[in-house]
């Protein structure tokens, strides 16, 4: 969704009363708009009485916050040790090849963005993935492809 100053103001207002509101505000904005464009920094800084540098510092610190939109479905593959022990590296290479993209990259048709994640808490049923909102355990490419299909790839 394109940045909308009024809608953003509404979202900020709904969260600004919280103690240490910066993260909840940024999370809610990203949830609504899909990412945090440059305009977000100034507007959040202004509303929360922070400097732009402070808000920029927070956005750039956390892996979850994005400065640009991603594909329609996010495919998160776990890269951590328990999944490595069950072939996560090979699965990631296969997924990247099948999708024709790399980490943090989006397929040319804009459908899927491949993202690394460090642990989904599915270490006993590895390797693990999060496809859109769906958790996939004992993941292999056919299961990931099926989950992507369900997301309307």
């Amino acid at each position: 969704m394109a940045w909308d100053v009024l809608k953003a103001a509404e979202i900020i207002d709904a969260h600004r009363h919280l103690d240490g509101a910066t993260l909840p505000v940024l999370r809610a904005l990203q949830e609504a708009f899909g990412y945090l464009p440059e305009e977000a920094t100034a507007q959040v800084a202004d509303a929360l009485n922070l400097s732009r540098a402070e808000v920029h510092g927070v956005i750039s610190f956390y892996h979850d916050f994005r400065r640009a939109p991603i594909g329609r479905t996010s495919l998160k593959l776990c890269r951590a040790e328990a999944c490595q022990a069950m072939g996560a590296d090979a699965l990631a290479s296969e997924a990247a090849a099948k999708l024709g993209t790399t980490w943090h990259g989006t397929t040319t048709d804009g459908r899927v963005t491949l993202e690394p994640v460090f642990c989904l808490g599915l270490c006993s049923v590895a390797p693990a993935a999060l496809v859109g909102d769906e958790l996939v355990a004992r993941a292999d490419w056919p299961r990931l492809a099926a989950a992507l299909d369900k997301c309307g790839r």
Partner: protein
Amino acid sequence: MSRTHRIFVPADSAALALGADAVAVAIADEAARRQLSVQIVRTGSRGMHWLEPLVEVETASGRIGYGPVGLADVVSLFEAGWLEGAAHALRIGAPEAHPFMARQTRWTFERCGVVDPLSWEDFVAHGGGQGLAQARALGTEATLAALIESGLRGRGGAGFPAGIKWRTVRETQANIRYVVCNADEGDSGTFADRMLMEGDPLALIEGMAICGFVVGARKGFIYIRSEYPRAIRVLEQALELARTRGLLADCDIELRIGAGSYVCGEETALLESLEGKRGQVRAKPPLPAHAGLFGKPTVVNNVLTLATVPSILVRGAAGYAALGHGRSRGTMPIQLAGNIRHGGLFEAPFGISLAELVDEIGGGTASGRPVRAVQVGGPLGAYFPRALFDTPLDYEAFAARDGLVGHGGIVVFDDTVDMVRQARFAMEFCATESCGKCTPCRVGSVRGMEVVDKIIAGRDVASNLALLEDLCHTLRLGSLCALGGFVPFPVLSAVRHFPQDFQRP
């Protein structure tokens, strides 16, 4: 119509990721087709993850488990008469009698997998709320004394005595105090916090209510990682339920969601993040117990620490303290993960050996190949070879062997693992997740990656190994927190115990 049959289908993330929702729908459909009345109860997981989705039916002789149930099995289960507990290839019998369960001693995970996590009636019927009632009856001093007597130490990894921390917060002069639950379970190989929050969230909430009562806090926060969407949803509902039932009358709790930073699992970085800042580590002192969230005295405890408190108060501190090994008292929810045949959650008194856990209980590797290494305690924990499998699970015993218990996760690797790659990954992870405050961690982790790359390429191996050792020394002594301070554990243990992997042409 005959009686209503109760069927329990886990809604734990591990079960969901293996198709439990679709199985629940298929069961309901098949029951309807057969004109049987069924009530499907969504529970947490028992912790036998290789059997998920592990479906249980309530029979005249108790609950009987069947697993792993796939969509294709549903019709045959009905055909076999599973609602009466009949024989079937997937039948495991009474779940609590299964050898994996029967060997456990559950204090923290008593209710997990048994109850509907969002049913107040289930909670109360299984002892929920009695811990807080007991605390109120005992009073704050006696509750604190019981907690100290139990020997409960912080389950997040640092192992600091919980009672001492609570007492410090209680005795610090202030107008406001806070209780903060660290639910930023980022270590690979660990999922006990997630399971508890999904399977018995009210235990955690009750533990926080007790903590608030003892230390005099009127406000609590649960800081949970964003990578746990299911746990977030369950906790939101559980907090609402607890609020309407009066469990939060004296100390309200707010749920806060992280934003993908591993270092925010470090308590001072977590507090910075809660305050709305970059998750950069603070220097200690001051301790959070003296000046924590917004500068106020704050208890920061892990999910498991807080969730164990009610059962200690109900079942008795002496009973808890009687379990364990050395100075590690009580039980530890151990997580068996990675390349393991019987992965899942195993709660046992401290003192159990790695060999028992990996070989007997875990059943060796999932791949069927020999176990070569285990990493205990997350990405900052040491890699242990089979020669060290006699190490008992005990904070001090692990420390004596240059390892750590951490949050109790054990990741198993088979003989295809390349330990020089694992050492490189430890440095890479540290570089990715460093908060940037301490130069040895911020810069040293990148240099560490480069040095390991040279070793992999076979360039000046001996001198690069010496350099790596020296760099690890700097990281250990020159970092404020465990990220930079402990990353030498996986790196140097890999070098020490698996030298051949670092000496290839």
